[in-house]
Structure formats: structure tokens, C-alpha cells
């Protein structure tokens, strides 16, 4: 039953770019139907890590098991199949800038379902309302603010009701109220359609509120993991410095 608990298991993941080793034998087990939040320093490799989970990057070493199947040796075609279960919000939203907001959100539905135009539009309006963007459907991405783009990206990531959703910093660049709204949306995503959420976040207070499990990535490895309470109580000096946001401590700015 231990097997069923984890939807994604990463073993010994190593990745270097040139001479820079970003991930160094990282192990990570992500629990099914939970909000798993990864925290860590800027530039520490969090985005690189989730790009491995969805197969956009291939590791130098290690295994990545999604529902017990190793995705590392898979062909692009098999990967395309596996990815149908996933939704992803990119850190910079990655909206298609030749398509309007509506068309961006509708895109996966048009491509992968046989729903009618009217049905699709109903879903799209609903998802846009969920991220506080009703009435913005006909705007182009270039006309939006950074936070608005991010929310469109979020609506697009969720529109297929995926079973596994990767969020790369969903609340960064948003005002506190909107940040809280998005955090609620993540919780709803988990509760309403039983999705596993994997979130990268720099927002410590939000993380403490919505996370079931918190993982801290530091120097290419997961150094600590646990519930929000366990992380708050952690005696690890790196973790303490990080969640309290202190300039002095073992984490060196170099």
C-alpha cells in the first residue's frame, strides 16, 4: 500500500548544465491527492526539478516514476500519453501570444476533446471567473499585467481537470488578496476533482496554510520534508533561516 500513497517517486536525480550541477542525487516522494509544496532558494533548481517531472528535461542520472512507471526512457509518444494526466503552470505563464486569453484557455479543450464550441466557451468562462478574470476573454496576452498572465496560465493548466498539476510559483507577483484567492483555488483543485498538486512557492505564509507536505530543496537535494508544523519546528539551521527569512545563517549569498 506504500506504493499507492506516492504518485511520483524520484530516485537519485542528477542534472548538470555544463559544469554546474543543479540537482545532485535528489530523492523525492510526492503524495497522491495532496498539496506538495517545494521551497528553496531562487536559482536552486526548483523549476528544473518540475520540468523533469513532466519530461521537458531528461536527467543525467536517476529515475522518475509516475504511477510506478519510469518516464526517463520513454519516447516522446509515450510521454505525450503520460502528459495527458498533467497540467502545468509555467513560471512566466508561457501563454501563446498569438491567441487571445479565451483561446489560450480553450486551446487544450479544442485539441483534446470533441466538445462543441458552446460547451467549451462555458467551461472557459467558468475557469476565467475562477481566477478573477471574467470579461477579459477577448484580450491578448500582451495587454495583460504579469499577475493577470499568470492567472490565465493557471486557468489553462486546470481546464482539462488534470489529475496532477504542477504550479511554478502560482502566487508570486500577485497582491495578497489575489494570492490568497489562488491558494484557495489550489485547495479547491485538490478537494473538488481530487488532483495531486505540486507547487513551487516562495510565499512562506501561504505555504504554511495550504500545504500537506513541504519539501525544502537545498544544494541539489531535498534536505528536509514534513508537514507545515514539522517544518516550522525544524531544528535544521538552513530551514530555520529560510522560513524566517533571515540574512544571517548557514545559507550564503555568493
Amino acid at each position, binding site marked *: 500500500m506504500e506504493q499507492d500513497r506516492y504518485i511520483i517517486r524520484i530516485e537519485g536525480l542528477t542534472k548538470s548544465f555544463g559544469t554546474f550541477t543543479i540537482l545532485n542525487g535528489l530523492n523525492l516522494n510526492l503524495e497522491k491527492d495532496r498539496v506538495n509544496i517545494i521551497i528553496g532558494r531562487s536559482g536552486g533548481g526548483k523549476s528544473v526539478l518540475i*520540468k523533469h517531472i*513532466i519530461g*521537458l528535461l531528461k536527467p543525467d542520472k536517476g529515475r522518475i516514476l509516475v504511477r510506478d512507471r519510469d518516464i526517463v526512457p520513454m519516447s*516522446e509518444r509515450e510521454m*505525450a*500519453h503520460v*502528459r*495527458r494526466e*498533467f497540467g*502545468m503552470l*509555467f513560471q*512566466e505563464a*508561457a*501563454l*501563446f*501570444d*498569438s491567441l487571445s486569453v479565451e483561446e489560450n484557455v480553450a*486551446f*487544450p479543450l479544442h*485539441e*483534446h476533446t470533441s466538445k462543441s464550441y458552446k460547451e467549451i466557451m462555458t467551461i472557459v468562462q467558468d475557469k476565467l471567473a475562477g481566477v478573477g478574470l471574467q470579461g477579459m476573454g477577448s484580450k491578448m496576452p500582451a495587454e495583460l499585467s504579469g499577475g493577470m498572465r499568470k492567472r490565465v496560465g493557471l486557468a489553462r493548466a486546470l481546464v482539462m481537470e488534470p489529475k496532477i498539476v504542477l504550479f511554478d510559483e502560482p502566487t508570486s507577483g500577485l497582491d495578497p488578496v489575489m494570492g490568497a484567492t489562488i491558494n484557495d483555488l489550489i485547495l479547491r483543485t485538490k478537494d473538488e476533482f481530487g488532483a495531486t498538486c505540486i507547487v513551487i512557492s516562495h510565499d512562506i505564509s501561504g505555504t504554511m496554510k495550504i500545504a500537506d507536505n513541504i519539501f525544502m530543496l537545498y544544494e541539489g537535494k531535498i534536505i528536509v520534508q514534513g508537514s507545515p508544523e514539522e517544518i516550522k519546528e525544524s531544528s535544521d539551521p538552513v530551514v530555520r533561516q529560510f522560513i524566517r527569512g533571515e540574512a544571517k545563517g548557514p545559507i550564503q549569498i555568493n
Partner: protein
Amino acid sequence: MKNFFGWLGHNFLELLQELGRMMLLFIQAFFWLLRPPFRIRLFLKQMEFIGVNSLFVVGLTSLFTGMVLALQTYYAFRMFGAETLVGATVALSMTRELGPVITGLMVAGRAGSAICAEIGTMRVTEQIDALTVMSINPVQYLVMPRILAGFIMLPLLTIISDVMGIFGGYVVGVQLLDIHGGLFMNRIYEYVELADVYNGLVKASVFGGILTLVGCYKGFYTFGGAEGVGRATTQAVVMSCVLILISDYFLTALMF
């Protein structure tokens, strides 16, 4: 001296490697062509962008090329009284050579660069990754429709180019330089064969494939932000023009 050859060899190897990777992209695009879903709208949009929107520049440049050809050959042919051959010369040069080449170069500058910049921007802003994540193959979605549209639209544009060039030659030869209009046209019928036109169109098709493939390839493998997009675009235009002119020689040697 040794350094120079080393440098030359290095560049040559790099070029070969690049051509190889381009071929791989082309083969992938070809296989995706045969596999559903078939996105007709994307393809029509590219036909419009590559073909219809290039009509004006191609027409204009071909018109003036035909005109200057007529002017140049007129002065040469007059020396031995063969002025009436001006029309046939213009028509042969246009259909066999200049029509396809001018069309290829103009479309490479206009559409090839735009293709590269668009796909390159999509690469550096992770839009291509976003496609991949949505289980949509970016080669099928972005590359294949463009190459196919290039293959099909370049011959059509070349027909326009041929017609405009010959028309330009007629205007200069008959209206300005007083060559006999009937003889001018008769010589064209006499000397130009349908095969000349067809072979020109085959060339154009190849050029269309080259310029779209190079644009897609350079865009697809862009890195390094906005600067990278600029660099890739310049390289795409230079490389497609060079490849068009080189392949033109070999196609000519093969066909005529």
C-alpha cells in the same frame, strides 16, 4: 596557413552537422504530416502568410527585374540586329532562373525571417514547452504546416513572378524601345518550352522547402532570450539565401 585550413575545416564540419540536424527535423515533419490530427486551418493560415502576403513584393521585384533584363539585353542584341530576341531572353531567364530565385530570396527575407522570429520567440518564452506539456507535438503543430505551405506556395508565387517579369520586359522592349510587339511575343513562343516553366516551378518548390525548413530549424533551436532570437533570425535569412543559391546551381545542372 595551417590555421586557416583548420578554421575552414571546423566551419565546414559545423555546417554539415547543422544540415544533418535540419534533415532530421524535415524527416520528423514529414512523418507528422501523415499522422492525424490534420489541422487544416493552421495550414491555410500559413499559405496566406507565406503566399498571399508575399504577392506584392514578389510581383514588384519581378517586374523591375524583367524591365532591367530587357534594357540590358536590348543594348547587347542591337549590336548584331537581334532585338526581337529580347522577349525570348527575358522569358527564358525568368522562367528558368530568375523567377524562382527572386521569389525564393524575397520570401526568405519576408516570411523565412518572420517564421524564425516567431518560433524562436515561442522557444525562449517556453511556449513550445507549453505545447509539449499539453501533449501537442510542436513539430506537427508549428513546423509541418509551414514547410508544407512553403512547398506549395512558392511555385504559385513563381508563376506570378514569371508573368510579371515578362510583362516588365514587354513594357520596356515594346513600349519604350520600339521592338515589334508581335515578333517579341512570337519569339517567346518559339524558344520557351513548357519544360522550362515546369522545371522552374520544381526549383521554386525546393526553395520553398528550404526557406521554411531553415526558418523553422533556426527558430526551433533558438536560445538566449531576445538577443538569441535576433541572432537566429539573421542566421536563418543568410543561411536560406546561401542554400537557395547553391541548390539552384545543382538543380539547374540536374534538370537542364
